[in-house]
């Protein structure tokens, strides 16, 4: 296990070291991350990186393949545009966690901010707690599991992202609708939660049957004047 100390080093130096060590096959612990921005951007090799504290914006952004654990909270755009890999944040995540991800898994053990999973194209996002305003906005694919409550405009203007919510939904966004969960969905929830959340956190969540499923109503997919009432708000 290699150790990197952030203090007094530039982000460029820190990231270069992380990438080099990952390539060499080392597991890495990054000490004193100090909530600095752009830590662990563009990690393109498999291997484990642990941030021993909170991180700033875009941590693990543009990543492909690594496993990143944050022993603190994360700023905006956590794991944005990730292609594959795993990002686990033990605290909370700021706005736009998992924005535009195309694969991999993002796990927020605390709460996440506004626009969680915005424009996600594929992959999996799990938030053990609650999520903020407009989460799931324009989600194109993949799955998002929110253990707790959602804020307003949840799942607005989605394409094919499938969301599951364990708590209360403050308000569904434009064209978001509730759907019946299938047995397959319940199995997916059970296996995903068991795989990514510790038992202590799972204990706070309802069982799979207690999750609400939210999908796109598909009325905003094409311009149709018959659905004008929906468009009136959405355009």
């Amino acid at each position, binding site marked *: 296990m290699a150790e990197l100390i952030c203090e007094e080093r530039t982000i460029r130096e820190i*990231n270069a070291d992380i990438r080099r060590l990952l390539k060499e096959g080392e597991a890495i612990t990054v000490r004193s991350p100090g909530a600095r921005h752009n830590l662990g951007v563009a990690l393109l090799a498999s291997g484990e990186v642990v941030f021993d504290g909170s991180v700033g914006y875009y941590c693990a952004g543009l*990543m492909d393949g690594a496993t990143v654990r944050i022993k603190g909270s994360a700023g905006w755009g956590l794991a944005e545009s990730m292609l594959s890999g795993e990002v686990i944040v033990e605290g909370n995540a700021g706005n*736009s966690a998992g924005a535009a991800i195309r694969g991999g898994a993002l796990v927020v053990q605390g709460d996440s901010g506004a626009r969680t999973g915005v424009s996600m194209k*594929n992959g999996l996002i799990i938030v053990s707690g609650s999520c903020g305003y407009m989460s799931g*906005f324009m989600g194109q694919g993949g799955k998002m599991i929110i253990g707790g409550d959602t804020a307003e405009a949840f799942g607005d203007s989605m*394409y094919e992202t499938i969301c599951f919510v364990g708590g209360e939904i403050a308000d569904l966004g434009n064209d978001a609708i509730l759907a019946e969960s299938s047995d397959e969905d319940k199995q997916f929830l059970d296996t995903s939660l068991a795989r990514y959340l510790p038992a202590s956190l799972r204990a706070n969540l309802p069982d799979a049957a207690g999750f609400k499923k939210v999908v796109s109503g598909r009325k905003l997919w094409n311009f149709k004047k018959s659905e004008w009432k929906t468009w009136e708000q959405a355009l």
Partner: protein
Amino acid sequence: MSESSSPPRALQQSGIFSSRVIEDIQTKAESGIYQIRGYGTLRERRWATFDDLTFLPCSLTRIPLEGYREKCSTKTVLGTRFAEKPIELDIPIMITGMSWGALSYNAKVALAKGASEIGSSNTTGDGGMLAAEREHSKTLIYEVLPSRYGINVHHMQMSDGIELTIGQGAKPGTGGLLLETKVSDAISKQRELPVGVDQRSPARHPDMLGPDDMVIKIEELREATNWQVPIFVKLGASRVYDDVKLAAKAGADVVVVDGMEGGTGASPAIFQDHTGIPTLAAVCEARAALEDMGLYGKVQLIIAGGIRDGVDAAKAMALGADAIYIGTAALIALNCNRPLYVDDYHKLGTEPHFCHHCHTGQCPVGVTTQDPELMKRLPIDEAAERVTNLLRAMTLEIQMLARSCGKSDVHHLEPEDMAALTPEASVICKVPLAGTRRVWGS
């Protein structure tokens, strides 16, 4: 039938409710939504353009260079501020970002080949990178747009520059559209969207809002590309002076300003006609912003929007642009609006030279379509040659003007090399009105 002896009654139409307005109202009354189209503004009212300027070549006060032979450099370097590998081009005219989706595969590849042949660059677009466009582009700029369709860090690392797009001149403040006929199997796969949706791209980036976030975003893009390549910020021309300052302050190497005349694959018509400021005004504001920050010449400026020929390009450069993006002009070189397959223009309810129907996906000449049959009408190599020729001719036009103004480098053109033909242009460009020795408004 009895013949009338009175003269025919002169028809008189309302200046407000013109034929076009009547048609617009009745179309909306049928469809229930605003009008969408491609191409760029069709606005008829005149505004100050590059045509309102004229060059003042040398006579006795200055000595010209030999017009057809003396050396006049066109080498263009972009991204000298922070990037370790600035972009070096042989000419100052570049191909702007137009998505694979808006454009056909053949059009994308032809642009890449055509630009590379003459040492220019090509730009991806709102749909990610096409492998063939990387393969055939000597220099490729990768756009990072609000939609993030096809975003791929590996593609970013294979690129020669990154363009963080905040907006476009044809539709500042709103996202792009790709209507269902163009969301084919291949495009839906590339963009990870259901086949046949009317795709509406977001206006805002998913993970940043204002200029403070952008500082961090730019650093992220540099980290992702190991600080090697320049980071461009592209703006639709709106509050240009302030926006350019913010982009430069946020750390951009290159600022792209796309004026109101800028082209589009599909956008609401009202945005094309009634939002943003003209390219002429935009270049002047952008230059002033960089000068006021002491960054003119350090942050490079690329200007886009309605540039038709070497003359427009030379005027934009004299006013402060380091390089020029062309979109529509390059599509016209590909064959857009050429009188071929005229019946198919008629099917769209238009004629060659009047077409602005890129949004339909039924482009008669195979440029803005995903229909394999229509696409075949654009053979790649012939089309690429026309792009090369256009870029060459435009470059020669710039060089001729520069030599006549006594410049051995096209980048040495300056406002002093021009006079204004209208008081508006004099006010905007701060060059004297022809016939006076006065800069109006100062």
